[in-house]
């Protein structure tokens, strides 16, 4: 186990569809199973119809039957502004309602009887992973490295950090997913090459090109399709099953029943996964759909072969390759120049995907690391290196860098970079600009972050107007714009007329959409919840001790009571009844069910009183 005095540190892959947590244990990075024994936890949260909050696999299992109160793919929304193109796209496909934040700034989610900020939603998934790690280590875990897509801007990264804070985690660093995958892949070996990370996850496809040289992991190009992933493959299988079922049962439509659809989705995903390892599998769903008035429920029984699955999804795989080709073309990289191809995401285990990658790159993709674990493992390696610099892990220590270009909007609506992507922070840079019109006396400074040449496609971080510029012919005035990023990631931008000395400035702090005050309130509420749970645990412990003591006393009296009852004509079933009560107590204690204990405690007390009377009173009840 980790030897740190401050407790273990973990790496978290907070995915769109699934999340995973890992840690370096006795020098070896490994994924920590959740409390159900699974290595992946679905990034799904729900408020069930009975009001219970569900996270992970349980929430996923009722995602279709309780669609309006189940939140998945929150990562698509984190740190996004209300009204942005990404949020509008998400609104078209997500079944749960989205609303604007208090100042119409960020996007929020309505679930159950309240509105949630997106960092709060992600915090619940992070909290679940934290609890899994704590159960694994047997001690509190408070520090983590969390991964995000390489294209995430500062706002999205800050929102992910806020999610960590709400979950009670100090986010030591946010690192890029492809970088994390490359770190895990390169663990224990030296890589100095051009690496492509082909990440086909549950909901998104990302392809990244990294230049790795002397421990510098430079993400030089990123491409992808944010609406292409394993779920599209599942849907193809589901459609095939629905159509086949309708043919077999006179047009019976499984899509009309949410329970049937939920089972169908689970079965389609399972069959798809199985076909990565075997050539054929059977989908067996008994009592899937009501048969109608007085008729028995209908079963679904079908064989799915790998070649059929490939036929159903060939176009999706082709889309992945087309996106990969476009990304490489944009970066001016030929497939033959790529030294390694790292496969990430569960869907990349599909043989057809691997074959397509092999054919495109003309080389075998990596097989050394598990595609669903590799990102979390890289994060764990980074967390370990940050927590244990003394252990000579500095070769995998990543520097804190700017994720995207920072700059200004210039005439024509173009974007002028001032601080390029991947610049190590803290840093500063200046750039001299001039006016675009004769006798111009003011200039608008729009501070942007992004990778597009067009200013409008990048994220606006803040803006201000510099007044009092000396009237002159266009191009004659010199305005110096300075960008400075502190070690805390706070960006200061100033603009100065070099002749008049007129100065105007702005400070930009990456924001998740949550104010500090709101964040504190949420964290306080979580502390209250925690205290309540602690009190409930204390109450359970107290009741457990009392119940165990009463049960032990009753069990000790059983021989005496049995003897006493043998001389009597009544009360023969007293011992059997008492044993049943004791059994129920043991079962409730084992299940940790505090709600049953008060009633059982009362029964135990009555039984004990009776037994004491019987044992000491010659078989007559007291």
């Amino acid at each position, binding site marked *: 186990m980790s030897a740190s005095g401050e407790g273990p540190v973990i790496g978290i892959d907070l995915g769109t569809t699934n999340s995973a947590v890992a840690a370096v244990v006795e020098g070896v990075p490994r994924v920590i199973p959740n409390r159900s024994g699974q290595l992946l936890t679905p990034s799904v949260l729900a408020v069930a119809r009975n009001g219970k909050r569900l996270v992970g696999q349980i929430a996923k299992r009722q995602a279709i039957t309780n669609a309006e109160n189940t939140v998945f793919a929150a990562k698509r929304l984190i740190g996004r502004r209300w009204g942005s193109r990404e949020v509008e796209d998400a609104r078209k496909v997500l079944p749960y309602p989205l609303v604007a934040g208090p100042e119409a700034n960020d996007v929020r989610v309505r679930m159950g009887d309240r509105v949630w900020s997106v960092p709060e939603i992600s915090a619940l998934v992070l909290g679940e992973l934290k609890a899994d790690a704590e159960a694994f280590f047997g001690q509190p875990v408070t520090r983590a490295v969390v991964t995000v897509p390489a294209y995430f801007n500062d706002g999205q990264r800050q929102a992910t950090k806020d999610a960590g804070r709400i979950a009670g985690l100090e986010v030591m660093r946010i690192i890029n997913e492809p970088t994390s995958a490359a770190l895990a892949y390169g663990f224990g070996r030296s890589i100095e090459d051009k690496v492509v990370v082909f990440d086909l996850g549950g909901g998104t496809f990302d392809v990244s090109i990294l230049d790795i040289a002397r421990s510098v992991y430079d993400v030089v190009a990123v491409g992808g399709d944010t609406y292409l992933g394993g779920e599209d493959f599942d849907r193809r299988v589901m459609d095939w099953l629905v159509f086949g079922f309708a043919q077999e049962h006179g047009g019976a439509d499984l899509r009309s029943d949410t*329970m*049937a659809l939920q*089972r169908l989705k689970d079965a389609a995903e399972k069959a798809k996964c199985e076909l990565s390892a075997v050539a054929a599998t059977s989908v*067996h769903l008994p*009592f899937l759909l009501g048969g109608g008035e007085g008729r028995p429920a*209908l079963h679904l029984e079908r064989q799915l072969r790998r070649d059929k699955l490939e036929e159903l999804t060939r176009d999706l795989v082709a889309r992945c390759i087309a996106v990969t080709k476009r990304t490489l073309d944009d970066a001016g990289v030929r497939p033959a120049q790529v030294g390694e191809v790292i496969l990430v995401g569960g869907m990349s285990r599909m043989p057809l995907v691997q074959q397509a990658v092999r054919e495109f790159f003309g080389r075998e993709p990596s097989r050394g690391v598990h595609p669903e674990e590799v990102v979390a493992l890289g994060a764990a390696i980074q967390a370990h290196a940050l927590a244990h610099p003394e252990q000579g892990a500095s070769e995998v220590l990543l520097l804190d860098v700017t994720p995207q270009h920072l700059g200004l909007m210039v005439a024509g609506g173009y974007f002028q970079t001032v601080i390029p992507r991947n610049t190590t922070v803290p840093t500063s840079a200046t750039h001299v600009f001039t006016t675009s019109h004769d006798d111009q006396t003011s200039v608008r400074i729009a501070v942007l972050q992004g990778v597009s040449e067009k200013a409008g496609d990048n994220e606006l971080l803040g803006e201000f107007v510099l007044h009092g510029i000396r009237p002159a012919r266009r191009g004659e005035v010199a305005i110096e714009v300075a960008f400075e990023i502190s070690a805390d990631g706070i960006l200061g931008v100033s603009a100065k007329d070099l002749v008049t000395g007129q100065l105007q400035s702005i400070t930009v702090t990456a924001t998740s959409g949550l104010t500090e005050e709101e964040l504190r309130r949420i964290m306080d509420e979580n502390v209250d919840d925690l205290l309540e749970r602690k009190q409930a645990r204390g109450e359970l412990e107290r009741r457990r001790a009392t119940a165990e003591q009463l049960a032990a006393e009753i069990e000790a009296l059983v021989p005496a009571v049995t003897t006493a009852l043998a001389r009597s004509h009544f009360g023969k079933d007293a011992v059997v009844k008492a044993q049943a009560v004791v059994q129920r107590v043991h079962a409730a204690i084992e299940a940790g*069910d505090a709600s049953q204990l008060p009633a059982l405690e009362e029964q135990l007390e009555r039984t004990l009183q009776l037994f004491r009377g019987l044992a000491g009173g010659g078989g007559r009840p007291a």
Partner: protein
Amino acid sequence: MTVAELVEEGISAYTRGDLVAAERRWRQALALVPGDERTLSYLALLGSPPAPSAPAPLREPDPFSPQEPCRGEGRATLEEYVPSPWEQEPAEAVPVVISEGEGLDLASVDEQSEVYTLVPRTPPAPAAGRQPHVEVWMRGARELSALGDFTGSLELIERILKLDPAHAEAREYLTHNEATLIAMYESKLGPPGAVPHLAISPEEVTWLSLDHRAGFLLAQIDGTVSYEDLFALSGLPRLDTARILANLLAQGVIR
């Protein structure tokens, strides 16, 4: 069998929709105690005439029986309808223009001629006999509840509430019966935190007689989810989930 048992079995059969069995049981009860008011009131539900020897029962009129066209009070008379145009004067023929390629629109003809179908002046009174029908069911629900047959009682209550959603006593019984049934079924399941397991092989499941809701719940039982989780993820009312799980447990499908 006692009269009470026969009546109870009759009610169970009736709530199952097996009217033949219900009538048989109630007639057997009536044979044991001729003229028994309770038995007669149930037979009245079927619109069955009592045995000739029985004294004239307090018959509940059957709203759906063709032998009883008369609905008693609330019956609409001709006077209660708006006057027919024919009663005033013959309707004038109104020229109806049919455009080329169009058919005759009867509704339009109706409108143009101002000759309308007869319409009652006031909305028709609720079908006579419904209220007494509800009262018989309510009486049955009370008795079944008192006998401990909360399922039977609940079924009758649900029928009452379909006809009269605001029926206060039925609502009260609904809450009481539901709570009692949930407690009964949950006590059979054991602690909510316990994790059920499939007790038969997946192949054997096909040979069971289940509905699709039970099929859904059964599909969720994989040795990792607790009863409490099943209540949360089923999406069904708690009572239905508890009932299905208790039945699966009783049938030995899960353990």
